[in-house]
């Protein structure tokens, strides 16, 4: 395996090594556990940032027409009986997602600094989740991608069910069963691709150069898109998301909503649309309508809720609908917008969940009605709350605006009536977003300070690092988006060429 391939394999080997190291530590060494995990996620973040920098500085050219511009790739035969290889490589989109995962993982460890019960198990399960996620993003073999996806599902259950709050066991079981149900659809689709024309391969690159026959694509595409869509909270299979994200501990909400849901969008783009372009052309209107319902329905339901976490969870459902909406428009700006929205929304929702967690740990309530005037005792958190909320609205200067602009322009660029109507509806949902976000800001931050809230402490140093890292990256993307665009453009171009001109 080339050294580059070793580097990207390290992104999931480092979490695995951390798991083993944490497991052998004796009980009671919680401080050491936290620092080891912080160091491990920090090293991972630096590694991924370095890889992304190297890639963006010299983007490679695609090896053949139809292939994405890959770097650091390698291929080792694994389960020969089904031609499963350990085939890895990254392009711009993968690196952007890995960068997102690295940032949120690091911030997640910082946010979890004050967990004091069963600390070892918490960090072990979290590292399994991380290992699976990174493994997904680097996989170029469909089966290995599926395997890493499945690896992430069980720690999710354990993390929410053991360390969560509220109706945690119910939420954990619902989340888990629905996500694994989605992966049952994916498995059927993948086996269909393997056997479709007797090709007997799971190699993504082979499918990229020559797609399966159109008759096979006709039934495989909806299975795959729907299966990955469940992971990305597509309507009507989004119901796992609000309960799951709201019951999860803060760091896990951040990671699940920020990165794990993006696995769904990533799978939809890389596996379903890229490899099955005829199927995409055929079925896209259906998924366009579903994602529009996501956007509008999610926004409306968020208006109704008064629990901050539920508001953000439904806002996530709505914004993840924007990702699939961008993909469904089948235009250059739409695809790029979807990818940018994956990155941007990941950062923003993680930031929002982190801040909600900080507020909850101080006020012990998440109900909007019970809080008021928090800006006075906690100005740092208050300002960050405002930034996060306004970014969700698409305020220029923050990443949300860049992504949503691309998505809406791309949606409108597709001249079909359905597309344009849905784009108008989606744009109008910003108004609804304004309702729930501004109302939340007003209720939580403004107004008279409650008696018992007057003495609350502002953000600690760990929390400030988290907020600055997340908000700073979002601002960097919002003010000067060229760096992220340069990272993903080549890869989006490669996918667009396959999807639009099959």
């Amino acid at each position, binding site marked *: 395996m080339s050294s580059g391939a070793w580097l990207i394999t390290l992104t999931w080997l480092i979490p695995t090594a951390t798991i083993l190291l944490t497991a052998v530590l004796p009980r009671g060494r919680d401080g050491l556990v936290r620092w080891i995990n912080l160091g491990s996620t920090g090293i991972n973040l630096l590694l991924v940032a370095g890889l992304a920098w190297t890639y963006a500085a010299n983007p490679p050219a695609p090896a053949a027409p139809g292939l994405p511009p890959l770097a650091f790739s390698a291929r080792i035969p694994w389960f020969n009986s089904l031609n499963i290889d350990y085939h890895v490589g990254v392009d711009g989109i993968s690196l952007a997602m890995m960068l997102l995962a690295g940032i949120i993982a690091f911030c997640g460890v910082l946010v979890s600094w004050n967990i004091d019960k069963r600390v070892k198990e918490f960090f072990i399960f979290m590292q399994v989740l991380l290992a699976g996620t990174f493994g997904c993003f680097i996989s170029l073999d469909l089966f290995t991608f599926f395997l890493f996806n499945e690896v992430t599902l069980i720690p999710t259950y354990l993390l929410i069910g053991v360390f969560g709050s509220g109706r945690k066991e119910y939420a954990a079981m619902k989340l888990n*069963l629905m996500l694994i149900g989605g992966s049952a659809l994916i498995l059927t689709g993948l086996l269909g691709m393997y*056997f479709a024309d007797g090709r007997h391969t799971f190699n993504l690159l082979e499918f990229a150069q020559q797609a399966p026959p159109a008759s096979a694509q006709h039934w495989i595409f909806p299975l795959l898109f729907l299966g990955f869509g469940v992971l990305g909270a597509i309507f009507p299979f989004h119901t796992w998301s609000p309960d799951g994200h709201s019951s999860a501990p803060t760091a896990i909400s951040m990671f699940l909503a920020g990165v794990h849901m993006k696995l769904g969008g990533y799978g939809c783009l890389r596996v379903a649309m890229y490899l099955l372009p005829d199927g995409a052309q055929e079925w896209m209107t259906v998924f366009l309508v579903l994602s529009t319902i996501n956007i509008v329905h999610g926004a409306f339901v968020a208006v109704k809720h008064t629990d901050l976490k539920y508001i953000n969870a439904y806002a996530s459902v709505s914004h993840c609908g924007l990702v699939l909406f961008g993909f469904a428009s089948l235009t250059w700006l739409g695809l790029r917008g979807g990818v940018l929205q994956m990155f941007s929304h990941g950062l923003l929702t993680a930031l929002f969940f982190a801040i909600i967690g900080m507020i909850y740990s101080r006020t012990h309530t998440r109900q909007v009605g019970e809080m008021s005037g928090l800006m006075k005792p906690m100005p740092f958190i208050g300002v960050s709350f405002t930034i996060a909320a306004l970014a969700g609205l698409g305020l220029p200067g923050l990443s949300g605006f860049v992504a949503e602009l691309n998505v809406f322009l791309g949606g409108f660029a597709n001249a079909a009536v359905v597309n344009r109507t849905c784009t108008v509806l989606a744009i109008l949902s910003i108004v609804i977003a304004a309702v729930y976000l501004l109302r939340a800001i007003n209720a939580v931050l403004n107004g008279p300070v409650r008696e018992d809230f007057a003495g609350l402490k502002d953000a600690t140093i760990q929390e400030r690092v988290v907020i600055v890292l997340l908000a700073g990256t979002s601002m960097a993307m919002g003010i000067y988006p060229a760096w992220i665009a340069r990272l993903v453009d080549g890869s989006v171009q490669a996918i667009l060429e396959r999807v639009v001109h099959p």
Partner: protein
Amino acid sequence: MTPRLMLLLPDLVLGLLPFAVLAADLFANPRHDHRPGGRTAVAGFVLVAILQVLAPHGLTETYVHNYVIEPWGLLFKQLFVLCGLLASVLSFTYFRHGRGHRRLSRGGEYFALLAFCTGGMSAIVSANDLVMLFVSLELATIPLYVMTAFYRGEEGSSEAAIKYIIMGSVATALILFGYSLIYGACGVLHFAAVAATPPSPLLTAGLLFVMAAVSFKLAAAPFHMWAPDVYEGAPAPVTAFVSVASKAAAFGFLLRLMRGPFANSIETLTPVFVGLAILSMLVGNLGALRQKNFRRFMAYSSIAQVGYLLLALLAPPAYATGSILTYLFIYTAGNMAAFYVFTIAAQDKDESMDVVHGLHARSPVLAAVLMLAMFSLAGVPPLGGFIGKIYLFAGAAEVGRYGLVLFASLNSVASLFYYMTVIRAAYITPVEDLTPLRSPSRALVIIAIVLGAALVILGILAPFHHAIFRLSA
């Protein structure tokens, strides 16, 4: 020593093993307990396993016209001996001489029966004509009836044994009736000649009767009624043995028929396999959801697992053999690990789910092994059960049965729910009594750990699977 003899040697030793056990029990037993018999059984199984590993693996040999050893048959035999070894080690510690209701009178006979059973199963996959197949099937089944009743004086045990023997006898009658129809269609009993007979409705009818009987052995729905009661009433090591070995033996029986005499007629049986698979998955998964008793839980779980295994029979025989063998090895490791942990945790009590409450604090290692076993049975990566199930589903997908694959995957999802209840009981349910768990025997814990490690290794490293597929061609 010629390769031909080396190939037969393990079976010869396995055939003589029951008598060695009885001899040790009669003549070398100063304290009149089960220990000499048990030790001889364990040593014998280890010896047979070593001889099997040393035997030439790629060879096909026929002995006295009726006994044929093929490469995939040798793999099945290794599986049976592994099951026998694990069951005899578990039994050795489980039956403590003279303590409460676990008193084992005539212990030597118990281990001799176990050895007879394993020998019979070995003969099933080596049969070359119908009579040999029938005799070996009976040799593999009748000792199990007796072993089920080994808790003398305990009603549950005797009741389970009566149910088992009555339903088993019905199955035997069905097989004989099927054989008589097949004989009527072919006029001969030897496999080579049966294979040469063209398919006919009489032959198909005979095959259907045989399939019904095999489905009973497998505990495939709708022939599964005996399984929950027998699993609950029998002594724990017997349940463990039945849950893995009798399933493997039944699949050995089926594959022997599918790859030998009935290779041409197997298309007629495809709807039967599909129907059995769907029903077994449904019955197993729905039945396991509400179980509070660990034994009944494992019974329904086994019924569902048989459903997944039946899917593989739709594929071409070589692939079917490979995928079924791989999954059976992984399933053995998972099931046996679960039984070992529950037996150690239950000590002298009945095995309800309560015995593992708080296991994560009382014995973290055993709780981890139990978690690995449950996740492997549910098909969670990176454990062996995941890749095993993928092999099985790929077998169905290869012949275009994608609806079945989707159905099986969704059932696998549903099964995760009830496997999780066991893990929840061990890890999440709060309990006051957190005294550390001391196992009656160090050997049991070590074997449980090895089985747990095997589940992880089988999920990640591929050479074992490659060897099985290569030998199954």
